[in-house]
């Protein structure tokens, strides 16, 4: 039986984003008021998890914050736009992987992470989403980040 009651999805992702962003880039993410409309000039990325913990994770990062993270992890290396996207996708892979590892350990069975996907059309909405949802709203000296996790447990797996 899946111990879903002990799995705090919000905490797993919140902790991963805050701790790893600071350790990778020295940027402090702070919680801010949950207002999706204030985020501007952002890029959107999607990661999915598959297995017992099925989820769709959508991350919107303001361009200045994206640049701050990439600049830090690349140690100031000059990157073209394609490389910047690859670097931020690796950052998201690391952070979401950490969160999912915690969930996997609590659930007792491993779910997998997909390769992050860059969504050029920021109005895109994933169809047929079903499940519970957690939203994380962060602000920093560089800008905002919103993370939306829609998930359910597939107990057949």
């Amino acid at each position, binding site marked *: 039986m899946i111990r879903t009651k002990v799995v705090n999805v919000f905490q797993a992702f919140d902790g991963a984003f805050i701790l790893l962003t600071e350790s990778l880039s020295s940027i402090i993410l702070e919680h801010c008021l949950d207002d999706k409309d204030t985020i501007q000039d952002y890029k959107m990325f999607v990661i999915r998890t598959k297995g017992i913990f099925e989820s769709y994770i959508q991350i919107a990062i303001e361009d200045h914050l994206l640049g701050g993270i990439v600049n830090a992890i690349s140690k100031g290396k000059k990157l073209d736009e394609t490389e910047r996207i690859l*670097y931020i996708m*690796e950052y998201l892979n*690391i952070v979401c992987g950490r969160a999912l590892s915690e969930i996997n350990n609590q659930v007792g069975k*491993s779910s997998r*992470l997909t390769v992050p996907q860059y969504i050029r059309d920021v109005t895109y909405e994933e169809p047929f989403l079903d499940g519970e949802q957690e939203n994380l709203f962060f602000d920093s000296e560089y800008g905002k980040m919103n993370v939306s996790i829609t998930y359910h447990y597939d107990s057949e797996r």
Partner: protein
Amino acid sequence: MKKTILVIDDSPFASQQIKDVVEEHGYEVIDYARNGEEGIEKYKEIHPDFVILDIIMPGIGGLETAEILLKEDPKAKIMMLSSLCDSGTLEEVKSIGLKYLIPKPLDEDVLLATLELLKKNG
């Protein structure tokens, strides 16, 4: 003679980090591959001493790539790398006959120590 490494990871960030660490400690990254299929072809061409292989990649994943490499060369020395480091993922790595999984973000000491173990134990 320096021990050679093939890095199979779709992330240029991870690949650069690995190169920066290992080449300061007597290893040489002789090539990179951005996905499993490319990694398998490069392994056959260059026969590196070690392979550092990411689990989550586009196309065939790292675990399937490792299985193919081990069929090709049962003595291949492979270290897996992943942002996923729960006990279940480690069991999956062991189930295909490998011993080492190191977490992302990379820790220099962990990477170097695991390379030493790979050198001694395979």
